[in-house]
């Protein structure tokens, strides 16, 4: 669906991403993992058409993504950003309904009510629908933003650290929802820090380190002790739970 070929990005004279070739495939959850500052968010921005790459090309269904008009692009892919502030005290239901705006004046707009209530339920915020966004806690805000992205109902979904502000249960909820979307045929790209979470829910991991794609493959292929220790520079142990690797740092008692 989305294909990046030989993509590189320079920002302010420094190379933050170089020579990345990666496919985003329908029906699959692709997790971008890697240390802080490795270029994960930049890669997400390039794949979603937000940053034009300095080198290489990004295509969506064979069309250069930069050529797709912003209105049409918004019906093809949605993006959950890390920061989600709202300038005015909109109601939660209004914020989620904003996710429907790309579909205004199309046939799909008759699904607006449906899409919003389904998204509210999926993000477990139905009970907050009439609250003001500005009154919510950080975790609640993150779920509202997630619901807004769900309401957009696009075939490609980008989630930049969707679990960062969430408690254990809601982390699992979000990732399960991502799996459900992929099962329904969507392509889901998610930036995650928690390797075990990525391993449990992603079909493929793309490990980004120092601006390069270190490796891409199944969780078992990517998460080897040698590779994790090299990339993250921390000793780890690997366990296998439910057929998927779980990464635990080696903690020496102090």
């Amino acid at each position: 669906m989305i294909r990046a070929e030989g993509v590189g990005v320079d920002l302010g004279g420094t190379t933050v991403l170089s020579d990345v070739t990666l496919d985003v495939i329908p029906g699959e959850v692709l997790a971008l993992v890697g240390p802080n500052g490795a270029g994960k968010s930049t890669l997400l921005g390039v794949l979603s058409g937000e940053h034009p790459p300095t080198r290489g090309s990004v295509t969506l269904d064979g069309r250069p993504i930069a050529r797709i008009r912003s209105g049409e692009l918004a019906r093809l892919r949605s993006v959950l950003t890390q920061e989600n502030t709202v300038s005015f005290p909109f109601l939660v239901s209004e914020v989620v309904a904003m996710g429907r705006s790309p579909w205004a004046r199309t046939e799909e707009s008759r699904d607006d009510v449906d899409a919003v209530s389904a998204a509210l339920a999926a993000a477990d915020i139905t009970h907050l629908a009439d609250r003001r966004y500005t009154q919510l806690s950080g975790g609640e805000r993150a779920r509202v933003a997630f619901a807004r992205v769900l309401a957009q109902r696009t075939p490609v979904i980008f989630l930049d650290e969707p679990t960062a502000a969430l408690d254990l249960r809601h982390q699992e909820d979000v990732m399960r929802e991502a799996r459900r979307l992929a099962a329904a045929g969507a392509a889901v790209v998610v930036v995650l820090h928690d390797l075990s979470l990525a391993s449990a829910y992603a079909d493929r991991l793309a490990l980004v380190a120092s601006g390069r794609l270190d490796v891409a493959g199944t969780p078992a292929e990517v998460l080897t002790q040698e590779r994790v220790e090299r990339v993250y520079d921390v000793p780890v142990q690997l366990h296998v739970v439910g057929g998927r690797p779980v990464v635990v740092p080696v903690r020496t008692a102090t």
Partner: protein
Amino acid sequence: MTGRAARAGVLSVVLAVVLVGGIVLSAVTGQLAISPGEVVGSVLRGVGIPNQWAPDDRIIESTLWVVRFPRIAMALAVGAALAVAGAVMQAIFGNPLAEPGVVGVSAGGAFGASIAIVFGLTALGTGTVAVFAFAGGLAATLLVYFVSRANGRTEVVTLLLTGIAVNAFAGAGLAFLIFVADSGSREQIVFWQLGSLNGSLWPEAGIVAVVTAIGTIVAITLGRRYDLLALGERNARHLGVNVEALRIGSIVLVALLTGVAVAFCGIIAFVGLVVPHVIRMAIGPAHRALIVASAVGGGALMVLSDLLARSLVAGSDLPIGLLTSLIGGPFFFYLLFRQRSKSGGWA
């Protein structure tokens, strides 16, 4: 949701009552007392409906149609223009404190107008002063916009400090122009600084009304996009909004609305701050309804303020800018206080 819908209903009724009441009260109040019946009758006859209430006295007729009605029309148009400009500015800055007066756009407009007055520029005909007011307003808006924005948002402190700088600069320019001007021009400039609806004529009111109507309609059609802008620049873009075009177009819109108001009536501060704020508190921040209600509310507030301005001190016409600032200053305090007690201030 239902709470806000009910409040919207209440607000519509309140605005309608205040608006019509303010208009009638303005029409009957003045040195020449005219009864409400005569006002209604005269208006009905004016639109072609003969009736028995219409006054026969020609002095009453001309007082209404030459003095009071154009002034009321001007008040409605200017109030609507300033309130809509305020709502749009707050939307594009993502900040409830952005207001043409506070951030120096009105001062820029007055500076532009004063240049035309002092140097006697008439290159563009009788509208030269208005065009200069627009240019000054636009320049100030662009300056504030580019200086105070970072990462798609405007910090309140930066915005206010930029406003101080722009106001100071425009103030210095005005002071210089007053210094070099002859006494006739001086008086005109002082008029611009104080703001007044005195001596409004139909053609002027007509120009302001047309610009305001067009600007308000444009703002309403952009309303949904302003809502999305509240999510921040990136999210708005991800939802298909052409953010740069929207911003630039809106800046021109704000400059146009503010410029046309300033060109004919001088600096009238705080309307663009107070009106959208009160309406947002009543019916929520969704921009379409906000802009419509702000236009009506701004018109109503201006009619009432102008009524006060010309009747508070018998036989004299107070500058209306003085009155709005008198109301707006404490309101600004209140906003700051409320925000501080809620979340420890803006910075």
